[in-house]
């Protein structure tokens, strides 16, 4: 510990939360750039986007949406649990959230590998034969769901750390702002998916 850190024992949960919200803002804007790109190309190639969207399996998307929504519930419950001092319950709920996240990724993995096996991936001869709007649709599909999956993985790591912190007592009934921050991040991952799901799966 260096001097400044050693002597800084101030605690200001409002400020910590504020910092987290600002960070979530930047994440939203990061995806916002992608949503702009999507909107522009959808406007440019409406029919081809429609056509390409039929290639996606709405069922898989729906299942993943349900999984993520449930995981948001479990993470919110884990915060309530720690507020009530139920350490083990809280850890178990975080564990469930991580399992849901894993399930989401497994689902995603099968979805992607199915697409790749039928020859739809960037620069594939199959895809290059399709009209430009469909190339763009699948390009965006891979980029946006890929970046989202990356966020799911980051979220899992954050939650794993929260679990460890609860075990070591760093997060406890009196001081749980770290878990709240992790939970907020997880909700963000969820919300972005809520937008991705209709854009890619439902408008077809």
């Amino acid at each position, binding site marked *: 510990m260096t001097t400044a850190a050693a002597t800084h024992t101030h605690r200001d949960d409002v400020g910590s939360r504020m910092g987290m919200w*600002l960070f979530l803002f930047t994440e939203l804007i990061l995806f916002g750039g992608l949503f702009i790109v999507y909107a522009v190309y959808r406007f440019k190639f409406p029919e081809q986007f429609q056509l390409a969207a039929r290639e996606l399996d709405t069922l898989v998307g729906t299942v993943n949406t349900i999984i993520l929504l449930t995981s948001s519930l479990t993470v919110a419950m884990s915060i309530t649990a720690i507020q009530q001092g139920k350490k083990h319950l809280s850890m178990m709920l975080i564990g469930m959230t991580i399992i849901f996240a894993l399930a989401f990724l497994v689902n995603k993995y099968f979805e992607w590998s199915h697409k790749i096996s039928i020859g739809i991936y960037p620069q594939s001869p199959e895809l290059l034969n399709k009209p430009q709007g469909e190339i763009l649709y699948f390009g965006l599909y891979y980029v946006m769901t890929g970046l989202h999956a990356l966020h799911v993985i980051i979220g899992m790591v954050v939650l794993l750390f929260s679990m460890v912190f609860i075990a070591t007592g760093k997060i406890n009934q009196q001081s749980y702002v770290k878990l709240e921050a992790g939970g907020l991040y997880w909700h963000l991952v969820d919300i972005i998916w809520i937008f991705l799901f209709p854009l890619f799966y439902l408008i077809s």
Partner: protein
Amino acid sequence: MTTVVRTSEPDYLHAQTNRKGISAWIFSTDHKRIGILYMVSMLVFFLTAVVLGVLMRLEMLTPGKTIMEPQTYNTFFTLHGIMMIFLFIIPGLPAVFGNFLLPLMIGAKDVFFPRLNLLSWWLFIIGGLLALVSLFLPGGPADTGWTFYVPYSIRTTTNVIPALFAAFILGFSSILTGLNFITTIHRMRAPGMTWFKMPLFTWALYSTAWIQVLATPVIGITLLLVVVERLFGVGIFDPNLGGDPVLYQHLFWIYSHPAVYIMILPGLGVVSEVLPVFARRTIFGYKVIAYSSLAIAFIGSLVWAHHMFTVGMSNTGMFIFSLLTFLVSIPSAIKVFNWIATLYKGSIKIEVPLLFVLSFIFQFSIGGLTGLMLGVLSVNIHVQDTYFVVGHFHYVMFGGTGFGLMAAMHFWFPKMFGKMFKKTPAIIGWLLMTVGFNVLYFPMFFLGYLGMPRRYYDFLPQYQSYHIISTVGSWILFIGILIIFINLIISLKKGMKAPANPWGGKTLEWTIPSPPPVENFQEIPIVEKGPYDYSEYEIKPEIAK
């Protein structure tokens, strides 16, 4: 946790920690040490980029080849741009002086997230090193210009990916700094320091921080998309696959125009800080200056497409962006008028920081007015992508922010290092810099108006006389910069000991010893007066009539 030596309140430069040597600095979470870390690393990048610039000017001395090949010239202007923008001017004032001064000015012991602050510096260094590494990898340094315009940035075989990643990481560092400053300003002001008792530099940092947080992610995702495009050929910006290169330009400028205000706003803040001290007057129109920073940040976020008037936008679009560009000049002009009004009837004391500030106001006005000319649609079509643009943005960025940084370096040097600098060499350096700067960049307005395109390696013989004047200017400017830096470095060792308040400043950082103790304030101060209370100097009403 008990290693802090607190016997005689050691200053932050000499304080003992349980880390030794350099790691007592590079792993320190003290905002003052982090500020100095930024300063050292940033100045290294700055001087490298200056040398690149001087060599480029030398190349332009004669038509055809003077000292380097065309490809070298392309990589030079790319590197000059990337280093100056991402490694010098964006982190420049906020990361160096913001870090050092923000907690001191608002009466806090540190920033809100000290460890995040250290992380920002590390990201800055990693990004900087990545940019340097890209120079030596096979393939050669990037040659796209700092703007990375597609489709060329997708097709060129040079090392664009490391350069893009470097810019991405630097952006992340900038976001974290902004986030930290906003939270610090909201949560850590000393008791009594209401929003309108904050020093104006703090206001400028606050506005800047919001732009950093809100605009930087857009460039992050845009640069990542170019990386993905290069690696996997996804097609988002590649016209062969249906992508739209103009969309890239929009996304790029949605960040990069607000980034211009990240660069200039803190400079404007420094001027508002220095002027009242040497005019011994309360700043004229405090609230208006504070609001105008916010107004610049807000309107400045809506003008990005004025960089793209020649790409074929709709007339309505062009009209709107031109109008907004005119509007953003209003808050900037308000500041200039208020500064002049502050000097009027002040008890002006000429010191080195004030000289730099006066150059700033002069050059910033020229830069601002030529910016208005560029915002006029008809003129823009004529001078788009010419030396006129190069002249304009150097007048704002270097003539403004660069000189603002010099003012800040001299103004807060005694506070940072506890030493005074030698006045005479600093004045000579200032004179050479101001003269050299104007000789270097003013001919560019003529060159551009006559049609000399920017980034061209070669030129027609009729442009040569202007190019010669400009190149001579670059030498004068370079000598000026050297004198300034050598003087400051010598003063570090041999300067006289600085008092707590050498200039007679009224803001909180002048109430504590120079250099400040580790803990900044022994007791958190209680603020009662506004930041520029010079009422004891001001002319009494009965004399004034």
